[in-house]
């Protein structure tokens, strides 16, 4: 039975990701595209983590504290995996729509839990590998191949398992907590933002943190030995110390099984506890009439703001824009000094800033899953006397409202602080709006062509969607094209003219997309 359940989970995931809407069979094109995108991400992230690991390893060889390498990479991998899985685990385990159905069948709840945890575990292995594989390769390259390699691979799996157990435990605590409060989305969002800000602060200051750690590694050894022995032992195990590896292995296994046992014992209670808060009697309120379009937009906003999964995964770029703006405003003088080193650098500053902003905005993909999120309630939109084009326009407008105003304000503010010329600021703002419209339209078009209306929990159309992945990567390509093209053009023509040219190009794309939605997109929606 467990095998069948696990198969169901994986089939659901891969079917959703690769299935063609018409044939309902896996599309080869989607699979190939997914593999290419995945390899691209793996290589990009792997190279950056590998570089970091190499720097750390060299420093540790110099000061003779090699044990710290394993502990450091294990912590980094755990943090990375935890960031990726903590909220998924909550929705995957406790908010799945088919929980009631499965619990009504003669299947032990622990099997259901385990079947749902295994795909999460696979993702954790992927997340942990992004850090630990480069770390292992760097270690083997520098220190030479030894039997420690085998231990390191097992440590990679151990890190994935223990991170899975911790993320499931946090998910369990969050589900229990959220069952008792009214403003679930707000609390989840605050929790996510705190988590994200802490992570980004660490990443922004990674060099300073690393310097500080490496300079104090001797005193840290005593602290780790006394207070965090598991990490110390992991570090020793990573270096090939078989006894400490065994201790780490047993300890991780005991902790993971213990957490799984606790979660499985309270699984049914947690699921039932997450269904509603105290009921408050409704008091009649005046319902003011709105136009159908405004009402559609309001509906999109309610869905977006009412789901922490949707909100946090699809609008993370907006938070990054704000964080980046704060960092750039705090470090104004330092950044100005760098750009004033040469006249060329100084002149391309508006283009570079704009390129970075567009790159961050490419991670906003509100519209790319908005059709899928209609799910089985799509009949409502199809049966109401509203234009299908208005439905699509409301989805793009939400995408625009979520990302454009903040970015325009940020760019204008940076333009004032960094003394850009007026035309660069003006057309930069126009380019931002056009870029966001094009990205919103691209995501929506993809989702219209390949929607997933049969999902059982929201993470499936939001986090496990190839539409979202493609949308993000295309945005990254667009922003890179702008950045390189803009810098190149700025060497020949004034930077503001380069920005105008790109603004015109994106506006043209936006017009073409709008025409497609009017002519074909509306009909596509009605045909779903």
């Amino acid at each position: 039975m467990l095998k069948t359940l696990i198969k169901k989970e994986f089939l659901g995931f891969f079917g959703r990701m690769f299935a063609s809407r018409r044939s309902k069979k896996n599309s080869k094109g989607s699979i190939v595209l997914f593999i290419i995108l995945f390899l691209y991400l793996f290589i990009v992230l792997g190279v950056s983590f590998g570089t970091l690991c190499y720097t750390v390893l060299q420093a540790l060889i110099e000061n003779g504290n090699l044990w710290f390498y394993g502990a450091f990479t294990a912590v980094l991998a755990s943090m990375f995996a935890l960031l990726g899985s903590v909220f998924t685990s909550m929705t995957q385990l406790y908010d799945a729509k088919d929980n009631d159905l499965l619990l009504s069948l003669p299947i032990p709840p622990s099997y259901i839990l385990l079947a749902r945890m295994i795909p999460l575990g696979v993702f954790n292995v992927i997340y942990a590998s992004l850090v630990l594989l480069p770390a292992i390769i760097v270690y083997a390259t520098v220190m030479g191949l030894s039997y420690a390699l085998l231990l390191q691979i097992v440590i990679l799996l151990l890190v994935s398992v223990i991170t899975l157990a911790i993320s499931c435990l946090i998910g369990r605590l969050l589900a229990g907590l959220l069952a008792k409060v009214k403003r679930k989305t707000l609390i989840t969002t605050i929790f996510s933002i705190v988590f994200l800000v802490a992570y980004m602060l660490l990443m922004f200051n990674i060099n300073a943190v690393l310097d500080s750690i490496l300079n104090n590694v001797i005193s840290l050894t005593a602290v780790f030995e006394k207070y965090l022995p598991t990490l110390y032992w992991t570090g020793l195990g990573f270096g090939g110390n078989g006894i400490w590896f065994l201790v780490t292995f047993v300890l991780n296994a005991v902790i993971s099984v213990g957490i799984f046992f606790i979660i499985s014992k309270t699984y049914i209670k947690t699921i039932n506890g997450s269904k509603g808060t105290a009921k408050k009697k409704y008091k009649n309120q005046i319902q003011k009439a709105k136009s159908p379009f405004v009402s559609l937009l309001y509906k999109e906003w309610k869905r977006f703001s009412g789901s922490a999964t949707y909100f946090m995964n699809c609008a993370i770029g907006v938070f990054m824009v704000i964080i980046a703006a704060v960092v750039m405003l705090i470090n104004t003088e330092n950044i100005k000094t760098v750009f004033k080193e040469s006249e060329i650098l100084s002149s391309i500053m508006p283009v570079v800033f704009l390129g970075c902003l567009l790159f961050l905005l490419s991670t906003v993909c509100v519209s790319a899953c908005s059709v899928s999120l209609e799910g089985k309630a799509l009949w409502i939109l199809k049966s109401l006397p509203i234009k299908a084009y208005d439905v699509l326009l409301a989805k793009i407008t939400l995408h625009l409202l979520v990302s454009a105003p903040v970015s325009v304000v940020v760019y204008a503010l940076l333009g004032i602080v960094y003394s850009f010329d007026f035309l660069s600021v003006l057309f930069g703002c126009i380019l931002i709006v056009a870029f966001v419209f094009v990205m919103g339209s691209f995501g929506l078009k993809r989702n219209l062509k390949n929607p997933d209306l049969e999902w059982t929990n929201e993470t499936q159309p939001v986090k496990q969607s190839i539409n979202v992945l493609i949308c993000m990567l295309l945005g990254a390509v667009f922003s890179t094209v702008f950045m390189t093209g803009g810098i190149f053009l700025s060497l020949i023509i004034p930077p503001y003219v380069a920005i105008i040219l790109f603004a015109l190009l994106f506006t043209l794309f936006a017009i073409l997309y709008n025409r497609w939605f009017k002519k074909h997109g509306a009909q596509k929606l009605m045909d779903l």
Partner: protein
Amino acid sequence: MLKIQHLSKYYGLKKAVDDLSLEINAGEIYAFIGHNGAGKTTTIKCCAGILDFEGGEIFIDGISVKQDPLSCKKLIAYIPDNPDLYNFMTGSKYLDFIADAFQIPTSERQERIVKYAKIFSIFDNLGQPIGEYSHGMKQKLAVVSALIHEPKLIIMDEPFVGLDPSSAHTLKVIMRELCDKGSAIFFSTHVLEVAEKLCDKVAIIKEGKLIVSGTMEEIAGNEGLENAFLETVEGAKNA
């Protein structure tokens, strides 16, 4: 009010509805019965403008569903068999959304929402998110949302599933009242007793084809609708 002419609908190569014709006049309650998979829901969805169809025509109050679907949708209300609503909205916000779609003025919507929500005993729950509603409450909300724009034609797919006895009774009373005021109702059901007591006319569909249609007296005769249904469907099978 509703005229279906030679309707044909395919799913791939499978013919789900085959040359079906029906006419429902204002003031009539029309039951649509048949086995599971006979084509009832497909026909109903075509009438509601949710599904496109390959052959034939559907007119609502003389307007073609194919040519002018928006005008048709303004005249009708559709209640599906499974009330999948917007779980992220509260009941009142959902009704507000539906009222906006039908452009019902503030004063009228207020009065109707209060009236129907109280009749179906969900007024006190309107402030709760729909995700916290039971199946029956969602069904009641779907019914209320269908009534607030006072449609000329109500198309319902198994409307009594999930409703408690008192709400089912209320719905039947309202259906009759609406028809007395000049609306028409076309609904599918498996509860033949309800169809027999409530409906003026009935149509029986089998494998996408209309087997028989007419007034309840003509179809049910003295033996009752259940016997008539079994005889008709079995007869069609043997033929």
